[in-house]
């Protein structure tokens, strides 16, 4: 069990982190933190799975999942190893200077008075403490609560079929037995990615999806919100945990109908459509926010990172759910259109449309294959 856990941590934490370091070597935006590096690496790793899975699904008849697993394992290691080498080189090249401590900016309350430092520290501890309590509670409930949802009979079973039977979308999930390739769902390969993790780690795919992956996906969602909050509140740091607390409470009490993204997030965390609402769309918003803040400033302050996030998440949206590509493209196009008007730079809208090419190709393939 411990070995399985260590293997899984290596696959979903270490590999993305090291891959992110490789990407960071190409875009040396100052002040980029580990969270952003991890997010970039995670998106790279999962987008890499897409062509491998599709290729094996369409072109290999027998034992295609085993072949897919082997190819992807090798391909996923390459950027991570390269990232580690790059990072080691970077550390060696860096001159050992004592960093200058920037003067702490004075922070004013709404009434204009300078806030007391000790009070702000206490406030910070209480707010972060509150967020961590809510966050820990959500993780606890994710592990100890079973949610009835009929879609698990399809999606989780597809992952388990790949793990146990070694086939990709050619076995009926509800009853068993062979079937033709399920074109409608074949492009959304997320269940196969879970099956890959299950196969490599040795964890049963159902346990992985329902008990283990929420322990990764819920923190991933809050990581995205954290990165958004850092951009929203660069000066008043105590706003970040306050913002996260409100978002976390909203996620827990957002189940006003069966349609809300909040309900999907905590009751079906591992399903592709839930990840559309909880990861894909927030990452696109993060990318748009970064674009909005960065455009007009000197090059290298976040524009490249923003476009990378937008493009890679657009592909990831198709991996999550077949219609995710349409929604993500809609959001990117709308956001870039508004940005282009606000910044008076039509080029932003044109680049935004170009960034949606993967989603357009995906939807074309979806319509043709359907």
């Amino acid at each position, binding site marked *: 069990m411990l070995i399985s856990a260590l293997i899984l941590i290596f696959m979903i934490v270490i590999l993305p982190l090291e891959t992110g370091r490789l990407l960071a070597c190409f875009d040396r935006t100052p002040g980029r933190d580990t969270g952003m590096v991890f997010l970039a690496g995670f998106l790279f790793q999962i987008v890499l799975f897409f062509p491998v899975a599709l290729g094996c*699904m369409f072109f290999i*008849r027998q034992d295609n999942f085993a072949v897919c697993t082997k190819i992807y394992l090798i391909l996923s290691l390459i950027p991570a190893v390269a990232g580690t080498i790059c990072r080691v080189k970077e550390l060696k090249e860096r001159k050992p200077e004592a960093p200058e401590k920037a003067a702490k900016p004075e922070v004013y309350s709404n*009434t204009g008075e300078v806030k007391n430092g000790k009070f702000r520290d206490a406030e910070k501890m209480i*707010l972060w403490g509150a967020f961590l309590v809510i966050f820990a509670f959500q993780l606890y409930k994710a*592990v*100890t*609560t*079973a*949610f*009835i949802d*009929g879609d*698990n*009979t399809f999606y989780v079973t597809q992952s388990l079929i790949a793990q146990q*039977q070694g086939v990709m979308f*050619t*076995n*009926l999930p*509800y*009853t*068993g*037995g062979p079937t*033709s390739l399920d074109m409608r769902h074949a492009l959304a390969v997320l269940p196969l990615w879970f099956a890959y993790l299950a196969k490599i780690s040795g964890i*049963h795919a*159902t*346990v992985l999806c*329902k*008990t283990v992956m929420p322990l990764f996906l819920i923190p991933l969602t809050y990581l995205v919100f954290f990165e958004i909050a850092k951009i*929203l509140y660069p000066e008043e740091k105590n*706003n970040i945990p*306050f*913002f*996260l*607390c*409100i978002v976390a409470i*909203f*996620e827990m*009490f*957002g*189940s*006003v*109908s069966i*349609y809300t*993204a909040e*309900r999907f997030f905590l*009751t079906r965390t591992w399903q592709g*459509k839930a990840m559309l*609402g909880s990861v894909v*769309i927030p990452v696109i918003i993060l990318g*748009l*926010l970064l674009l*909005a803040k960065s455009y007009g400033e000197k090059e290298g302050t976040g524009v490249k990172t923003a476009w990378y996030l937008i493009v890679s998440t657009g592909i990831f949206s198709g991996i999550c759910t077949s*219609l995710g590509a349409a*929604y993500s493209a*809609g*959001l990117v196009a*709308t*956001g870039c259109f*508004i*940005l282009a008007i*606000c910044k008076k730079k039509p080029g932003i809208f044109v680049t935004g449309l170009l960034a949606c090419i993967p989603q357009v190709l995906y939807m074309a393939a979806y319509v043709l294959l359907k």
Partner: protein
Amino acid sequence: MLSRLWAYLELNIATLLNYAGTGFLLLIYAAAFSYLLISEKDKAKRVIFVWTPGLILIAFFMPPVRYLFMRFIDKNDTYYRMLWMVPVAMTVAHAFTRICAGFKLIGLPVATAMIILCGGNVYKSVAGPLVIASKAQNEYHIPQEVIETADIIMEKEQGHRVKAVMPLDFTSYIRQYDTNIYLAYGRELIMRPDAYDELYSMLCEDPIDVEKMREAAIPRQVSYYVFPKTSSFLKDPESCGLEKAGETENHVIYRDPEELEYMSGISYYYFTD
């Protein structure tokens, strides 16, 4: 033409009302949106929290958008997911963060209380008459009895694939535990009210005619039968040629030794004609 447009507009409003559901969270969102529209001066934040969601909402209500969505993207009722593009939680959080800037420690419980009163607890969610959340009985998050049933079958068959007939509530879970157990019918009977399966209807009879059921099951390669303990039978299953394989708290599992057939389970990829 106008009546079609009006019909689509009514559909869009109905979709929004269904999305809003039983709580008042969308009212909190509307208040937060209005506050940021008036008070947020930072251009980047206005793009994210005001202009982009505003344009998305306008597009959401436009009948031609609905028509194009249903024509080219999805005929099923997933149009509500357009509303996921609107960052509701973040907008509310940002608005509260701005309002409570000077008194966060008081503002947090007040904001929390407002969201709790206007929202719905995800851990007490319902789907119709059903409460969807319950304490997990195991790490698979499926009923323990389903696991015991599958283990009884697989202990006998040592990993060979067999087909079984079982109550409908088991069919949603058993293949989430072991995909070597095939089913005579599955979740499609739950999803489609007009769906019919001969074996399932025989399972629901009172009393169950096991001989007739076995006759119908043989061409479908069924080797296992899971009966609720509360079932009554015209003739005892064991006198009809079935062998008791085991039992769980509420069910008895029978095996058909004469008609035991292993499923090939090999699926090669192929196109339909």
